[in-house]
């Protein structure tokens, strides 16, 4: 018996001696920093992460609900649910001393990684200089993009172009703000530098090209020009520009746009003779689309997708979560009629009583409206989008005039006309209209989207060109031609040079770029955000249908359920925020906070 214990003990000791020393364990998933800049695959993976981190467009939030954030701030549309940030955190929100709230963007982490890459990749001993030059230029584009995003929010911010080591002195670390002018000039000079390096045709779709660099310059310089022209310099020039700088920036923007136009690599998308179908497909067509300058690519099967269709498709068309982006009456009013008359008809007709002919009211509106918005009667996926609250009809058997408010009721003798639209499209919250731009009927029911999101497109470049040309007095004499290229593609009547006014250019931009996360920033740089947004009520539309006459009546009501959109004067420059100032006392806060 005692021997047995000996053997057991021996066994234990043998087991012990065969155990691995726990201190010899090493992680298997850490990639050594030493090889990252010596291996093309790893360097590519580094740059891919920079693209992912950059705010090319908002795709954050549970189920990407923030894809609509900027459009909501711009008063174009909003999210359905008050508990989603593109409604709840847009309304009633005075961006105070705490910072820009949900719009905050302070991407110095991304900028540092850009700097690390820009500094280290050229030192590579095994990668070819041609390769490294292009990848470094891509990182410089992303860095400049991130500075542009900050300049739009805060004005001047510290320009950091070096990845400081941990042992850096306080003087190096606790930087001061550069002026807004310095930031825009930095973006301009960076784009000039990389335009010479980047290829004309990207080796992979989704990478920036020299055209993307020019398109960013075109946009950023236009912003600088607007702020110079319409803004007020503050904080001893840290914010704003001397008004005399406006022309120089307009010229820079114009020159960048012109280089893209003259380059001939792009043209307005004109694949369908029907302007509505054409404008719908512009945002969906991924095969040789001539208008795309830069896209953020999505592909469900390759592992990167978004939820624009899941959230935005109207209820009743195959998605569990749906109808999430209601459009305001005010947005519809910006879209004129194809005969050139104003889309903003006398609101007295919205009395729930005046008959309104949908064939005129919707059917003769700017084709871009019919492509960008689901309006009552829109054909979609073989069905029809309805948002009416009720239908009056004459009962064929009794001859009595009846009113139905039931979605499930089909008007007798009709071709499937329901008594009412889906509850998600009428009633107390919906506006009766929904965002259609980039809603892709090809996305399989219930799955997430593969539709590429357009970041820079030729149509915008043309609008940039026209706007800069307008303020410069049409230096090349082609403003009318280029403006009418857009109008013609849209299916709208052409305008003479004399008709191309500041108001007209701005309206065209708001219509063409509706729901593309642009309008809000445009209103700000034109310095009309206070008039357009600050406590300015938006409306929703209610529809009733008369089946006998084929006419709608429309009533309007508060579109924001009692809440108020705010953009006080001081919000042209958001506060850096208490946290940033405490973090670095050398940062001066913007005025008014």
């Amino acid at each position: 018996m005692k021997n047995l214990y000996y053997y057991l003990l021996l066994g234990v000791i043998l087991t012990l001696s065969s155990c691995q020393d726990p201190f010899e364990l090493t992680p298997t998933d850490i990639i050594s920093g030493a090889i990252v800049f010596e291996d093309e695959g790893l360097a590519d993976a580094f740059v891919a992460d920079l693209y992912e981190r950059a705010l090319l467009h908002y795709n954050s939030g549970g189920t990407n609900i923030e894809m609509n954030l900027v459009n909501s701030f711009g008063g174009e549309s909003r999210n359905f649910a008050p508990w989603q940030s593109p409604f709840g955190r847009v309304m009633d929100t005075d961006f105070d001393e705490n910072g820009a709230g949900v719009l905050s963007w302070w991407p110095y982490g991304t900028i540092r990684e850009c700097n690390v890459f820009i500094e280290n990749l050229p030192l590579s001993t095994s990668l070819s200089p041609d390769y490294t030059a292009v990848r470094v230029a891509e990182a410089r584009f992303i860095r400049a993009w991130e500075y542009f995003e900050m300049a739009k929010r805060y004005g001047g911010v510290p320009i950091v172009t070096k990845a400081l080591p941990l042992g850096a002195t306080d003087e190096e670390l606790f930087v001061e703000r550069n002026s807004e002018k310095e930031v825009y000039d930095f973006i301009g000079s960076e784009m000039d530098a990389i335009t010479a390096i980047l290829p004309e045709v990207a080796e992979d779709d989704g990478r920036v090209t020299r055209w993307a660099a020019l398109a960013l310059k075109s946009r950023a310089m236009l912003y600088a020009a607007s702020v110079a022209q319409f803004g007020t310099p503050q904080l001893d020039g840290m914010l704003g520009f001397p008004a005399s700088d406006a022309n120089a920036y307009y010229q820079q923007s114009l020159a960048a746009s012109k280089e893209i136009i003259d380059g001939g690599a792009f043209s307005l998308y004109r694949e369908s003779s029907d302007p509505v179908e054409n404008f719908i497909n512009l945002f969906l067509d991924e095969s040789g689309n001539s208008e795309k300058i830069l896209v953020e690519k999505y592909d469900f099967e390759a592992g990167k997708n978004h939820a624009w269709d899941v959230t935005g498709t109207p209820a009743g068309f195959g998605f569990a979560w749906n109808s999430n982006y209601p459009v305001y009456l005010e947005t519809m009013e910006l879209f004129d009629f194809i005969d050139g008359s104003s889309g903003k008809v006398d609101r007295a007709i919205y009395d729930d009583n005046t008959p309104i002919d949908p064939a005129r009211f919707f059917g003769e509106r700017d084709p871009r409206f019919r492509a960008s918005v689901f309006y009552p009667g829109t054909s979609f996926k073989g069905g029809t989008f309805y948002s009416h609250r009720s239908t009056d009809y004459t009962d064929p058997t009794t001859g009595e005039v009846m009113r139905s408010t039931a979605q499930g009721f089909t008007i007798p003798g009709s071709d499937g006309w329901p008594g009412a639209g889906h509850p998600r499209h009428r009633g107390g919250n919906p506006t009766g209209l929904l965002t259609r731009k980039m809603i892709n009927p090809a996305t399989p029911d219930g799955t997430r989207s593969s539709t590429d999101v357009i970041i820079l497109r030729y149509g915008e470049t043309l609008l940039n060109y026209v706007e800069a040309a307008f303020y410069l007095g049409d230096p090349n004499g082609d403003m009318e031609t280029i403006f009418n290229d857009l109008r013609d593609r849209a299916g709208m009547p052409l305008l003479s040079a004399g008709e191309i006014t500041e108001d007209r250019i701005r309206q065209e931009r708001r219509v063409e770029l509706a729901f593309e996360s642009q309008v809000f920033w445009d209103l700000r740089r034109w310095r009309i955000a206070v008039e357009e947004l600050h406590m300015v009520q938006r409306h929703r539309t209610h529809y009733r249908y008369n089946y006998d006459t084929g006419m709608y009546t429309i009533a309007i009501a508060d579109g924001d359920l009692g809440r108020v959109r705010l953009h006080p004067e001081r919000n042209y420059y958001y506060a850096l925020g208490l946290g940033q100032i405490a973090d670095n006392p050398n940062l001066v806060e913007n005025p008014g906070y």
Partner: protein
Amino acid sequence: MATAQPILPTELPDPSIGNAYSGFSQRNPVLLTDRSKIGFWDRVDNVFRGKLGGSYKIPFISGLTVRAEVNVEQLSRATKSFRKTAELYQYLPETDSYSLEGVFSPVSSISDAQFRRTQLYPLVSLEYEKQVGNHSIKLLGIAEQQTRKFSSLNASRLNLLASSIPELFIGSTDQQLNGGNSGADIGRKSVVGRFNYGFKDRYLFEATMRADGNVLFAPETRWGYFPSVSAGWVISEESFFNSSKLVDFLKLRASYSRLGDDTADGLNGYDYLTGYDLQGNPYLLGDSEGQPRIRTRGLVNPALTWEILTMTNIGLEATLFDGKLGVEVDVFNRKREGIINFNVEDVPSTFGAQLPVVNINSQESRGFEVLLSYEQRIGAFKIDISPNISLARSTWLEVKSQEDFTDPDQQRLFELDGKRVNRFVGYRSDGIFMSQAEIDEYPVIQDGNGNATIRPGDIRYVDLDGDGELTFRDQEEIAFNTGLPELVGGLNLGITYKNFRLSGLLQGASNFAINISGNARNAFSNASIPLTYHYDLRWQPDPNNPGVNINPNASLPAMTQAPGANNNRVSDFWVKNVNYLRLKNLNLTYALPESLLSKIGIGSMDVYVAGENIVTTNNLGIFKNAFDPEAQSGNPARTFPITRTFAFGLRVSL
């Protein structure tokens, strides 16, 4: 559950159509419980625990024993999830038809994951024990180590061919995904030496020295050395003591110990290694498969090491009056040093790097525990009662993981150094505005916009600094924090009379708060069904005159689908300090007389009635009945409530 409208039936008149719509989107709580309709999520754990060990008394030195053992734990976990598509319909009585309102899991899917983990835990010890006269000595040495390795593999497919076969192969291969990894997440070594000394049973002394090493720290900082000592003095054993009749037993004890913690929040393991990690999702460039991404692990801190917990404890144990009264008192001080966090204070955000974790913060907790027990017989009654109370309060000593605030108000509100851990900072509220006139008269601008966004029925806040504007400076400490209460107490009570026994436990806590949030705060939040107090106590507009309230009990904001930012400020309107007292359980037992039972051959038989969570009282006012402060931090929709149970039973032993 919170969004299921009670006016909608849980089943359709014709169930063959599909599932019933419950009021919002694809949600339906009844459907969610039905495996046959929506599928399942199952996890099966197979755990093998084995221990092999032996000991050997060294023959030529008496009292010396060597012991060795190996513990093995093997976990094999299979997780399977199977999601079927389920359509939800609403019945439309007007037309006797059904409309499709939502689809649960529009794409059917199946996923299968296998996880395997092996932990090996060998140990050797050497023990020596000796008794010489009144002196007893014990020496113990232990060497142990622990390794844990894991590997995992998972796969999933979508668009199942048939929804009755919960197997991977039934899914489409078009969008199949698979993944897996392996590695080691625990690697520790320890050497422990312990010395015990005792004189009679009067003086007790123990000293321990530990050396702990963890592979997750850098080689230079891997080892931590942690001593501890404790001593006990049984005063009642002293000769000078035996004259006392009052006190039967009296013991004084004190201890001091240092321990290392390598499981703290923020510690990811291998934090000293630089390099890059592969990121989860690809970026797309070109028409290829996704382009993988790598991201830096950030700056690293090779000096990262153990968080150290130092505990000092002084205690007294006594029994008095022939054992009728027992007293136990402990006073403690626990200090946590080297708490791991990011050193934000030293570099500004424009530096841009993900900062390394550093052992920088420290915290101190002090408190006491008192436990009493008392027994008394009065005639046929026997009463035993034992109350206990404990208080523990923690304070931040030094915090470097936040900005170095210079603004006095930011220091007052946000700086943690030297402040209690258990505090909640926010605004003071002053009821709600009952009318537009009250808003117009209120001299304080609450929204930075001339109160233009404030509506009747909104919360009024106090302008503490009196500058006429509500800013962050108007905040102060408004409550304790949510989470664990600082003060807890209980009372065990028993009364025995002949064969009856009544026993119960009273429990209470104080010095903590709940933050009423989510759909408990905002009616309709996330399409939820409003609670009774929302309805009864809301500021209610007159339908004919919407600016005027018609609810005499109005004390909560007006109900709206879109609650404003004003009503969601952090304030004492929603954050409430809690005190509660609860009769946790009560038992009445009757033991049938033995004389009766012995005849039928039964050892004992008890009949009892027992109740749990019978009565609770708290100080939450209008929210009194909506929250269980023991279970919830303020959003009743998110937690399963503590249930009240009553049981009647019979307990028999042969």
